């Protein structure tokens, strides 16, 4: 990329109202540093305090999902600490609303379970989501989960529209690219 191309690239990012984008490896340290950057960015954009908190929370949940579950991993799958996995996150503004997008490869075998978890959230009201959240809070940690099974419910609770998601085959790999979009 030469300077002119870089200028075009930067202009296109600005035109799309993208306030944050990262593609690469996710570790706890990287997520924590990005969270600081996101917080500063949102303060500068003078977003309302409640909106800032919702974006921050959704950002951390989505980024930590990548740290925990992306199959593009530099660390052994069973490792629970100091994980390093690849994915991307983006925060932008569309029709005067903030949105977050994340993408990471998952195993083809995980697709059905993810779909089963996400699809019901799309038709739930906010009250339904809060009820499901309270119930999940009181249940044992689900098998295979490194969190509490509350991550997507937390994002859905903070979103102003149903969560969107998509799966797409990855070129040259058995993995499937998993996209999530939350509009705050």
């Amino acid at each position: 990329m030469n300077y002119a191309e870089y200028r075009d690239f930067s202009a296109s990012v600005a035109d799309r109202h993208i306030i944050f984008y990262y593609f690469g490896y996710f570790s706890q340290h990287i997520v924590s540093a990005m969270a600081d950057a996101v917080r500063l960015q949102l303060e500068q954009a003078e977003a309302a305090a409640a909106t800032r908190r919702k974006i921050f929370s959704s950002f951390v949940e989505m980024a930590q999902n990548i740290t925990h579950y992306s199959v593009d991993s530099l660390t052994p799958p069973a490792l629970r600490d100091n994980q390093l996995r690849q994915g991307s996150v983006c925060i932008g503004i569309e029709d005067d609303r903030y949105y977050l997008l994340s993408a990471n490869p998952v195993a083809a075998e995980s697709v059905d379970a993810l779909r089963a978890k996400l699809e019901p959230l799309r038709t739930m009201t906010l009250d339904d989501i809060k009820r499901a959240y309270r119930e999940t809070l009181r249940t044992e940690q689900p098998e295979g989960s490194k969190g509490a099974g509350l991550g997507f419910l937390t994002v859905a609770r903070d979103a102003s529209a149903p969560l969107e998601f998509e799966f797409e085959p990855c070129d040259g790999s058995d993995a499937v690219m998993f996209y999530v979009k939350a509009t705050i």
Partner: protein
Amino acid sequence: MTTETSDDLFIPATGSSPEVDFRFASHALSLRGESYPENAAAFYGDVIVRTRSYLESVPASQSVTVDVALTYFNSSSTKMLFGLFNVLNDAAEAGTRIVLNWHHDVDDDTILEFGAELHEEFPALDFHDIAVDE
């Protein structure tokens, strides 16, 4: 083991984990900061184990004060905090007076609602909602 239960527990804050200042000897437990460690189950698991063994040794007539001033906690921390308050509530049901001071930003509805949830679920705790206007 007997000395360990009375030792205080102090874990300094990091960018993504809270300060844990559990002064068992003076019966004052405090959590403050932000909580989104990579492995919340491990982080709070140790805290819960230490708290449980402290509560087993605390005299029934003793009053215990817990101050929680967390400005953000992620979903897996939420789950573990619920477990910690469950342990405190069990001790309160067994007769120990436990005061829970729940500090939160006056505008933070999520933390306010979680506090209300705790108040409802763990009625044996002497719950005080403390809204802070920054």
